[in-house]
């Protein structure tokens, strides 16, 4: 079994928004970054993966099993972290652990305590007195303490400071040392993904725009800076989006190597994931 998660043709119609044939795969042992602007459909997709909403069409397979038919055992192999902490405010971390140990058969209390220690989370302090960063770390500790094979992270690092984000990324690196473990990580902090992600899927207005290895994406996309007269020389089939001002044009292209050859007089910069998001987001303007 090579794929940990396969989403194919996922479709869900809402009033004013639809997920339109969303398809992507997460390979075992890899980290998939899931990017897109607010309201692009990231969380809806993750909800569908968790079988919390019922799609109109399409199929989702987790560890080779259809997610709607999933057994309890299979669900235990998934760890989930949402952007907010959903544990009871009045409990403390220790009580939360006790609570979760009754739910998960694989619950590892030692592991949980290790994470609490590592993240500097006081076990006796009530969760409502935790800071946002602490709540996030608690959610991550809880998600990792029942030995999941797939970790679904929905904006788990947004709203956290760089130091905590860095600590958390380290934990994810540790998690992925096992070749059977995989992570699907939605985020709009693209710099995190630029480090850690193996693959990146970009969703825009409910449609998957690209899904490829991060290295390929960063290797192929580039920003060409040129004058307006030079703009017409650029092969329009390579243009993804552009921005122009009174003095120059900035064009996002998806074929860096050809551009380096053909437009050697223009300035060609590497594009970041953020640039790619920005230019696609401006589509049609």
């Amino acid at each position, binding site marked *: 079994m090579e794929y940990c998660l396969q989403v194919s043709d996922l479709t869900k119609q809402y009033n004013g928004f639809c997920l339109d044939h969303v398809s992507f795969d997460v390979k075992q042992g890899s980290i998939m970054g899931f990017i897109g602007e607010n309201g692009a459909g990231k969380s809806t997709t993750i909800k569908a993966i968790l079988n919390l909403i019922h799609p109109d069409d399409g199929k989702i397979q987790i560890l080779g099993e259809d997610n709607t038919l999933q057994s309890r055992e299979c669900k235990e192999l998934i760890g989930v972290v949402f952007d907010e902490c959903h544990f009871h405010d009045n409990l403390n971390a220790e009580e939360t652990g006790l609570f979760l140990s009754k739910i998960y058969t694989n619950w590892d209390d030692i592991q949980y305590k290790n994470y609490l220690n590592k993240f500097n989370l006081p076990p006796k302090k009530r969760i409502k007195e935790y800071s946002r960063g602490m709540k996030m770390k608690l959610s991550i500790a809880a998600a990792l303490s029942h030995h999941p094979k797939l970790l679904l992270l929905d904006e788990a690092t947004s709203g956290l400071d760089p130091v905590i984000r860095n600590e958390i990324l380290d934990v994810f690196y540790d998690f992925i040392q096992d070749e059977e473990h995989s992570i699907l990580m939605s985020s709009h902090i693209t710099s995190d993904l630029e*480090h850690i992600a*193996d693959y990146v899927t970009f969703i825009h207005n409910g449609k998957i725009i690209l899904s490829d290895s991060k290295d390929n994406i960063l290797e192929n996309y580039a920003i060409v800076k040129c004058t307006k007269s030079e703009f017409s020389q650029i092969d329009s089939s390579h243009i993804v989006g552009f921005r122009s001002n009174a003095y120059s044009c900035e064009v996002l292209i998806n074929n860096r190597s050809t551009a380096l050859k053909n437009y050697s007089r223009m300035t060609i910069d590497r594009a970041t994931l953020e640039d790619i998001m920005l230019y696609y987001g401006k589509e049609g303007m």
Partner: protein
Amino acid sequence: MDIIISNSNDSPIYEQIYIQIKNLILNGTLKEGEPLPSMRALAKDLRISVITTKRAYEELERDGFIETVTGKGSFVGSNNLEFIKEEHFKEVEENLSLAVKAAKLCDYSLTQMIEFLTLLYEEN
């Protein structure tokens, strides 16, 4: 083992790793049969993606610098001294031909070049 990754460098990260590990093997810092860090551990330490390190290792393996044994890890390739010398020689040849090209552009004579080369060689 020192590996330095630069984000501002124009060459891709896998290539930076490839070149640096190759150089460590060529200059003898990494000895024959010595184990290399696992791809996942290296990715973690360098804070890059696993497929980047995987690609670097694959290219190193393809070019005969390392050997990968499934389940055991990657090791510096054995018995490739001849190969390494060849590799060195190729590099010397390439660089010299660049120098010759540059010299011809400004009518630098062969004697002058030899003199200059001798000077450089002895300086080092």
